[in-house]
C-alpha cells in the first residue's frame, strides 16, 4: 500500500514538474535586472550573524561559513542536515528523519539554531529526539550562516557554534512584482519525493515569499545493511515570510513556518521498547522592526519578537506489554523579545541590548493499557525564563588593529513542582553569570588579517537538564534518569587564533581553537529519595526490574582543541575549487581519557564548472573524507560496523550538474555516493544512502 501511495505521489510530482510549463504557459518569464544581480552578488560576501550587523566575512573575527541560496539549489539536499554535512568542521549524527549537527565536538543543546533571529532550541531540547534540522523547510531559505565556536555576548547557550537560517522575503520576485515556482525532488535511495510550491511578490511597500511543501521519505537503503527500518517519514510544511518597507530606513519583517512530520519511526533501547512512532511539528513565528534612521544617539534600532511552538507525540510500543502503545506528548511554547540599538560614536560601533524569553512546557504520557495519565519526559507545567543584557564595542585602535570587546549578563530561572510516582520534585532555581569576549583583528595587508579571540561563555541548564524523568539507554542496558534540580551552568573558556585571506580569486581561513569546558552536565549514578535504584514498590530493597538511578551532574570537565582550514579558488572560465579540513582532539579531563563522539579528521574537496552561455549548464565533483572514529559515542556502541571499538572512516564522491533548459525550467541531477560505500558519521543511528540518483526540477511562473 505504501509503495502504491509513494508511486502515485512520485508520478504526481514528476507530472507537476513536467506539465508545469504547459498549464502555466503565457506568463512572462522572470528576469533579473542588473541591479538585482549586483545586489545578489554583493550580499553573498556579507554575514549578519557575527555582530548582528551585515559585514564582509573577511572583516569578521570569527570562523564563519555562508551557504547561499544558489549553493542550496545546486546541492539539492533533502533537508538542512544534508546541506550542512559538507561545510567545514560540521558533522551530522543522522537519525530517522534528519540529523543533529555537531560543531567542534559539541552538539545538541550546545549548538544554537536560529531562524531569522528566533531561537529554535527550546528549554526541552536535549535527550529526546528533536531533529530540528529537518523541521525547517529548506525551500524558504535565502542563506545559512554558520559561526563556529563560542558565542557569549550577542547571545548565549552556543558553546559549539551558531547556525542562523535567514529566510527569503520576496526580494527575488523580479520587476514583474509577482512570481513563483513549482518543483520536484526525487532521491532513489529512499524513494523519496518532495514537491515544493512557492510564490513571491513585491510592490513598493510590501514583499513576501510563501510556499507549501509535501514530502514522502521511504526507508533509507544502505549498501550492506539494505533497507533500514525506522527511517521513513512523511512531511508537509508551509511558510510565509515577508517585509513591509515602511521607508528606506524602516522595515517591518514577519515570518511564519509550520512543519509537520508524521509516521517518524525510531528503534528503541533493546529490552525496553521496540520502536516509537512519532508525530511532531514545529511552528515558528517572528515579527521584527528595524529603523536605520540616524537620530544622533543611535544609528539603528531593532526590535524582534518571536514565538516557537513545538510538540512531539511518541507512540512507544513496550516489549513487555500488549500491542497498545504508551503515548508520550512533549510540547514547548517559547516566546522571546530582543531590543537592540547600534550607535557609531567616533570610530566606535557600539551595540547594546536586552533579550528575554519564556518557555512553557507541556509533557505527559498516557498508558493506553492501564488508562493512566502521567507526566512525560520532562516536567509538565514547568517554565524557563531567560534575561540578558549586553554591550559590544568594535573600534579601530589604529590603522592596523581592530578591537571588538563585549560583555553580557545573563540570568536563567526555572520553575516547576510536581508529585511524580517516586516522590515530589521541585526544580525552582535561578542562575546568573557574566560572560564576555575579546577579539583582535590585525590588518597585515588589505587582503590578510590575523586574528586572536578569547571568550568566556556558559550554558545554563534547561528544563530537560533539570527535570528529565524517564528510562534512558546506557552501555549495558537501561537505567532511569531522575531530575537534577541543582544542576549548575556549564562553563567554557575558549581561545582562538586565526588567519583570513581574500584577494577576489583566492580566499580562505585557518583557525586553531582551544576550549576548556568545566561543570559539564553528564549523566552519572545518582540517588532518588536516598536510593540508587528506582524503588517502584517502595520496599527499599532492590528488585530485578528496579533500574539504576542516573542524574545529570556537573561532573564533566573536558579539553577540546583543534583546527579548521577552509578555502576557495576561482580559476576563471567559470571554474572554482573549494575545500575544507578540520581535526580536533577531545579529552575527558577527569577520567583522563579521550572524549567520546569527538569528530575525527574530516574534509571536503570540490570543483565546479559553470558556463555563462545559454542555459547556464554547470557540473561539480564533491569528495568527502571522514577519518576513523577512535572513540565512538553511546549511540555507536551497538553498531554492526564497529571494528576493534572504532568506527571506520570513509570517503565518498558525488557528481552533480544542472542547467536552465528555458528561462522558466531548470533541473539538477546528482549521482551521490558513486562508489556505493556503506558509511555513517559518529552518533548516527542510520547509515548514509547507498549510491543514489537525486533529481530536482524547478519551473518558474
Amino acid at each position: 500500500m505504501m509503495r502504491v501511495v509513494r508511486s502515485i505521489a512520485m508520478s504526481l510530482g514528476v507530472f507537476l514538474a513536467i506539465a508545469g510549463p504547459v498549464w502555466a504557459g503565457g506568463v512572462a518569464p522572470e528576469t533579473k535586472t542588473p541591479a538585482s544581480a549586483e545586489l545578489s552578488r554583493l550580499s553573498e560576501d556579507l554575514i549578519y550573524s557575527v555582530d548582528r550587523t551585515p559585514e564582509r566575512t573577511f572583516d569578521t573575527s570569527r570562523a564563519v561559513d555562508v551557504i547561499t541560496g544558489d549553493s542550496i539549489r545546486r546541492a539539492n539536499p533533502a533537508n538542512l542536515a544534508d546541506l550542512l554535512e559538507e561545510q567545514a568542521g560540521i558533522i551530522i549524527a543522522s537519525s530517522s528523519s534528519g540529523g543533529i549537527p555537531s560543531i567542534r565536538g559539541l552538539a545538541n543543546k550546545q549548538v544554537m539554531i536560529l531562524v531569522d533571529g528566533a531561537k529554535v532550541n527550546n528549554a526541552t531540547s536535549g535527550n529526546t529526539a528533536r531533529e530540528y534540522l529537518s523541521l525547517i523547510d529548506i525551500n524558504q531559505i535565502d542563506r545559512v550562516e554558520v559561526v563556529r565556536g563560542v558565542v557569549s555576548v550577542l547571545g548565549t547557550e552556543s558553546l559549539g557554534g551558531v547556525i542562523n537560517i535567514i529566510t527569503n522575503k520576496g526580494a527575488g520576485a523580479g520587476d514583474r512584482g509577482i512570481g513563483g515556482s513549482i518543483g520536484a525532488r526525487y532521491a532513489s535511495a529512499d524513494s523519496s519525493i518532495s514537491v515544493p510550491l512557492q510564490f513571491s511578490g513585491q510592490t513598493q511597500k510590501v514583499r513576501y515569499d510563501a510556499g507549501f511543501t509535501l514530502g514522502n521519505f521511504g526507508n533509507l537503503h544502505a549498501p550492506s545493511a539494505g533497507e533500514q527500518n525506522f527511517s521513513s517519514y512523511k512531511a508537509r510544511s508551509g511558510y510565509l515570510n515577508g517585509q513591509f518597507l515602511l521607508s528606506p530606513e524602516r522595515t517591518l519583517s514577519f515570518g511564519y513556518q509550520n512543519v509537520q512530520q508524521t509516521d517518524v519511526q525510531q528503534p528503541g533501547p533493546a529490552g525496553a521498547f521496540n520502536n516509537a512512532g512519532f508525530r511532531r511539528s514545529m511552528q515558528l513565528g517572528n515579527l521584527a522592526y528595524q529603523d536605520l534612521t540616524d537620530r544622533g544617539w543611535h544609528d539603528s534600532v531593532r526590535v524582534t519578537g518571536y514565538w516557537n511552538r513545538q510538540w512531539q507525540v511518541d507512540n512507544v510500543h513496550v516489549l513487555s506489554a500488549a500491542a497498545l502503545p504508551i503515548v508520550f506528548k512533549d510540547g514547548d511554547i517559547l516566546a522571546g523579545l530582543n531590543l537592540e540599538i547600534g550607535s557609531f560614536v567616533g570610530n566606535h560601533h557600539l551595540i547594546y541590548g536586552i533579550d528575554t524569553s519564556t518557555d512553557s512546557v507541556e509533557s505527559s504520557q498516557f498508558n493506553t493499557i492501564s488508562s493512566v495519565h502521567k507526566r512525560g519526559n520532562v516536567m509538565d507545567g514547568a517554565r524557563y525564563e531567560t534575561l540578558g543584557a549586553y554591550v559590544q564595542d568594535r573600534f579601530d585602535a589604529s590603522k592596523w588593529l581592530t578591537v571588538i570587546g563585549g560583555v553580557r549578563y545573563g540570568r536563567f530561572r526555572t520553575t516547576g513542582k510536581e508529585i511524580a510516582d517516586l516522590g515530589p520534585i521541585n526544580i525552582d532555581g535561578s542562575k546568573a553569570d557574566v560572560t564576555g569576549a575579546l577579539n583582535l583583528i590585525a590588518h597585515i595587508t588589505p587582503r590578510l588579517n590575523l586574528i586572536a579571540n578569547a571568550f568566556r561563555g556558559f550554558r545554563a541548564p534547561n528544563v530537560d537538564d533539570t527535570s528529565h524523568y524517564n528510562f534512558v539507554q546506557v552501555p549495558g542496558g537501561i537505567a532511569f534518569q531522575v531530575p537534577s534540580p541543582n544542576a549548575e551552568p556549564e562553563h567554557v573558556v575558549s581561545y582562538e587564533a586565526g588567519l583570513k585571506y581574500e584577494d577576489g580569486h583566492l580566499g580562505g581561513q585557518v583557525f586553531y581553537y582551544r576550549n576548556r569546558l568545566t561543570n559539564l552536565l553528564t549523566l552519572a549514578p545518582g540517588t532518588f529519595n536516598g536510593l540508587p535504584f528506582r524503588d517502584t514498590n517502595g520496599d527499599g530493597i532492590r528488585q530485578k526490574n528496579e533500574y539504576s538511578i542516573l542524574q545529570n551532574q556537573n561532573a564533566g570537565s573536558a579539553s577540546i582543541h583543534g583546527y579548521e582550514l577552509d578555502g576557495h579558488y576561482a580559476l576563471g572560465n567559470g571554474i572554482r575549487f573549494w575545500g575544507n579540513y578540520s581535526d580536533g582532539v577531545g579529552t575527558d579531563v577527569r577520567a583522563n581519557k579521550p572524549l567520546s563522539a569527538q569528530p575525527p579528521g574530516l574534509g571536503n574537496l570540490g570543483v565546479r564548472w559553470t558556463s555563462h552561455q545559454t542555459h547556464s549548464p554547470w557540473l561539480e565533483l564533491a569528495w568527502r573524507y571522514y577519518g576513523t572514529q577512535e572513540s565512538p559515542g553511546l549511540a555507536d556502541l551497538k553498531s554492526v560496523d564497529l571494528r576493534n571499538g572504532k568506527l571506520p572512516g570513509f570517503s565518498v564522491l558525488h557528481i552533480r550538474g544542472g542547467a536552465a533548459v528555458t528561462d522558466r525550467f531548470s533541473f539538477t541531477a546528482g549521482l551521490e555516493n558513486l562508489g556505493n560505500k556503506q558509511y555513517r558519521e559518529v552518533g548516527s543511528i542510520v547509515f548514509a544512502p547507498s549510491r543514489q540518483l537525486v533529481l530536482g526540477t524547478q519551473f518558474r511562473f
Partner: protein
Amino acid sequence: MIKRIATALALLVLAVTASAAEFHVIAHSSVSATPMTKSAASAIFLKRTAKWDDGTPIVVVDQIDNGVRQAFSNVIHGRSVAAIKSYWQQQIFSGRDIPPVEKTSDEEVLAFVRSKPGAIGYVSDKASTNGVVVIQIQ
C-alpha cells in the same frame, strides 16, 4: 572634566568647519546649479531622492574611503564613513538597494560626472571643476 569636554567639542567644531571647505559637490553640466541643503544632499547620496526636479534620474558617484570622503561624510551626513558603509551593508543585506559606485580619485569622479547626465559626486577643493556644475551646500 567639563573643560576637557568643552575643548574636545571646540576641536571637533573646528575640524568640521575646516573639513567643510575641503570638497566641492559637483554635478553634470545639465543639472541646475541651485544651492541645496545638507539634508537634501545627504538624501541624494543615500539614494533616498532618486530624481532631479526635471525628472532626470540621479546617478550618484562616491569615493573610496579617503580624506575627501571622510570630510564629505562628516559634513553632509553628519556621520562617519564607517556608519555610512554600515548603512549600505544593511541595505544590501536586506535586498533593498546597492551603494553608489565608488571611484578612487577626483579625476575618476570628474570623468564619471562629466560623462553621465544626471550624475552627482564630490571632489576635493583642489580639483579642477571644469566641465561640471559646482553645487553650493547651505
